[in-house]
C-alpha cells in the first residue's frame, strides 16, 4: 500500500521539504531529478528511501542534509528555512551524513577521523573525553584499538564504512543521513548497523534517513519512502 508522500507537520516534525524540485543543468540539456517533493521527517523515526539507480535518491539526501540547495522549493529544519540557518551551520550542528564513498580524511587514523569530526561540530566532550568516546563507538562497530589507531587507508572498505558511521554517530546530531551504509558490510555487521540506527531513533529521538537498495533493510525501518521518476511516495509498512 502506498500513499503520496505528504505529511502535515506535527509536534515531532523535524525536517520539512516543501515543493522541492532539483534540476541539473548540463551543457546541452537540463535534467529534472526531483519534482515538487513535499514531505516531513519526524523525530525518533527510522526512514529508508528506496528507488532504482538514477532515481534521485542521493540528490534527495544531499538537499535534506544541507550539502546542496534545491533549485526550487524550501527545506526547513525545526520550522526554519535552511537558507536562513545557513547550510554550513545546519550541517555543523544538526545533521550528519554517512557517504557511500566513506569520504574519510585519508591522512588520519580512524580515531582521528572521529575525534576531528567531534571537534569540528563542537560536540561537548563526554565523560572520559572525546578520544574515549570515539574508541567506544569504533569498538561498538567492531574496530579494535589497533584498527582504530591505524591510518584509514590501511583499513578494508567495510572497516572504512564503519569509521564513517562512527564519525556520524559521534557528532550527536538531530538527524542522520546515510547513503548505502551497509553495502560493503558482511551480514552480521550490517545488521549491527541497522540495530544501531533503530536504537538511535528509539532511545535518542534521532531522525535517521537511509538511502538503500536493500529491501531487507527497508523492512526494518519505521517508514519506507520510494523515489521514482523524481516523485517521492511513502509505503506504509504493515
Amino acid at each position, binding site marked *: 500500500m502506498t500513499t503520496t508522500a505528504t505529511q502535515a507537520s506535527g509536534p515531532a516534525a523535524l525536517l520539512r521539504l516543501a515543493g522541492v524540485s532539483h534540476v541539473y543543468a548540463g551543457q546541452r540539456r537540463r535534467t529534472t531529478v526531483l519534482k515538487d517533493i513535499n514531505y516531513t521527517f519526524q523525530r525518533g523515526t527510522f526512514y529508508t528511501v528506496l528507488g532504482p539507480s538514477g532515481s534521485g535518491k*542521493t540528490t534527495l539526501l544531499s538537499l535534506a*542534509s544541507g*550539502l546542496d540547495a534545491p533549485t526550487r522549493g524550501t527545506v526547513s529544519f525545526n520550522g526554519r528555512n535552511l537558507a536562513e540557518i545557513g547550510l554550513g551551520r545546519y*550541517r555543523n550542528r544538526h545533521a550528519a551524513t554517512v*557517504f557511500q564513498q566513506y*569520504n574519510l*580524511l585519508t591522512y588520519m587514523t580512524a580515531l582521528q577521523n572521529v575525534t*576531528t569530526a567531534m571537534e*569540528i561540530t563542537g560536540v561537548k566532550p563526554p565523560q572520559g573525553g572525546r578520544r574515549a568516546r570515539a574508541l567506544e563507538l569504533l569498538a561498538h562497530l567492531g574496530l579494535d584499538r589497533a584498527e582504530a589507531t591505524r591510518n584509514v587507508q590501511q583499513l578494508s572498505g567495510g572497516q572504512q564504512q564503519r569509521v564513517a558511521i562512527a564519525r556520524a554517530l559521534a557528532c550527536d546530531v538531530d538527524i542522520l543521513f546515510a547513503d548505502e551504509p551497509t553495502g560493503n558490510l558482511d551480514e552480521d555487521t550490517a545488521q549491527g548497523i541497522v540495530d544501531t540506527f533503530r536504537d538511535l531513533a528509539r532511545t535518542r529521538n534521532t531522525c535517521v534517513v537511509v538511502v538503500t537498495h536493500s529491501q531487507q533493510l527497508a523492512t526494518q525501518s519505521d517508514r519506507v519512502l520510494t523515489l521514482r521518476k523524481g516523485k517521492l511516495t511513502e509505503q506504509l509498512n504493515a
Partner: protein
Amino acid sequence: MNFVKRAGFSLWARRGRTLTTFATFLVISVMVLAGVLVNAATGRAEQAATRSVGAEVNLGVDLEGLGGGALQAPRIATDTLDRLGRLPQVQKYTYWMYDRVIFRGDSRLVGAGAPMGPGGTAGISVLDSSLLADFRSGSFKLLSGHHLTTADKKANNILVEERFARENGLRVGDEVEVTGNDEQTTADFTVAGIYRDPAPTDELDRDHGISPANRVYVTLGGMAALGSGSERGGTQVSEAAFLLDDAGAQDAFKDGARRLAGSQLDGFTLDANDKAVRQMTGPLQSISSTATLAMWLIGVAGAVVLALLVNLAVKQRRREYGVLLSLGEKKWKLITQQALEIAVVAALAIGVGSLFAPNLTQSAGQRLLDREAATAQEKIDSWEPPAPGSTGLDQGLSPDDQPVDNADPIDRITVEPDPADLAAVGGIGLGMALLATAVPAAAVLRLNPRTILTKGK
C-alpha cells in the same frame, strides 16, 4: 584551533610531499638570500670605497656647448666659486686657469736648449695646488718648499717642476722675473716650491701642448699682477674642483650650486669625478649584477615551480575540503589550514637556508669577486699611455681609459646576514606561498560540498 592540529596531521602523514616542498623552498630561499646578501655586501663595500676616495665635483668648460664659433672659453668669478665653496656639502675646493707666462733673463725651457722665447710656457694660476687631482692622487709630488695655498693667494709665488728648476738653477726662495700674456706686464715671483711630475720630458702635456717639465703653477694674485684673469674688475677662472664630505651629497651640491650661481654657470659643466670609485668598485658591480640576475631568475622560476606544486596539492585535496565542509567546517579555517601547512614548511626552509646561506654566499661571492678583480687589475696593469706627441685617440685610446692611481679594484667582500634582509626574504617567500595557496583554495571552496564530493564519481 582544530585546524592547527589537522595541519600537523597532514604535514606528518604526507611526509614525501612535505619534504619535496621543503627542498624546493630551501633551494629558492638560499639562492634568493645569496643574491640579497651579495648585493648588500657589495653595497657596503661600494659605500666604504666611496667614503675612502671621497667625492669630487669638477666645474669645467662645456666644450660641446661652446660650439665651433666661440673664440674664448667662458670664465667665472672666483667670488662666485668661493660662495659655492661655502656650501655645506663642500669640504675643500680649489680653482684655476691657464695663461701664458714668460720667464725673463736667461731662463730656459726644458728640452729647448735656448733662452725662453716669446712663446713662454703654460702658467696655471691656482687657489690651492695641493688640491689638484694629480697632487691628491700622489701622481705629482712636492719635493721641497710648500704648496700654493689660500694663505699666499695675494703673494707672487710660483711652483716649478724639478727639471725646470734644474735647467734654470732654481731653488726654493729664489726670485724670478716673469712677464704676462700681454708681453708687457712684468712682476717678480718667489719660487715657493719644487714638485715632480713623473711624465717624460718629451711626452707633451695634452692640455697645454707643452712638455710637463715646463709647467709652472702661479698664485692667483701673481697672475693678476701679470694682468691675467682679472677681467671685468674681479679675478676670473675657468675650472674648479669641489671636494665633498659625502659622495651621496653630489646631487645636493649641484642643486645648491646651480641655485647660487644661476646663469653664471652657463657654458660650464658640473660633473662628478667618480672615476676612482668606478675603478675600485667595477668588479663589485659586476658580481652584484650577476647575483641580481641569478636571484631574479631563480626566484621567478622557483616561484612558478612552487606555485604549481602548491596548486596541485590544493586540487588533490578537493575531496578533503568536501568532507570537512560536509561536517560544517568553516571555509576560512580550511584555507588557513592549507596556508599554515605551507607557511610552516616555508618558515622552516627559510630558517634552515639562512643558517648556511651566508657562508655559502661568502665563499661563492668571494670566488666570483677574485676573478673579476684579477681581470680588472690586469686591465689596469696593461694600460699603456699613448705615444709621445699623440693624443691616443687615433689608437682608440680615450683619456678616460687612463687608470687612476691608488685606486685598486676591491677584491674582498664580507657577507654579513642582516636581520632586515632575512626578514624581507622570509616575508616575500611566505607571501608567495600564501598567494599560491589562497588562489586555488579559494577557487575550490567556491563550490558546494556536494559538487566537490561527487565530482568525478
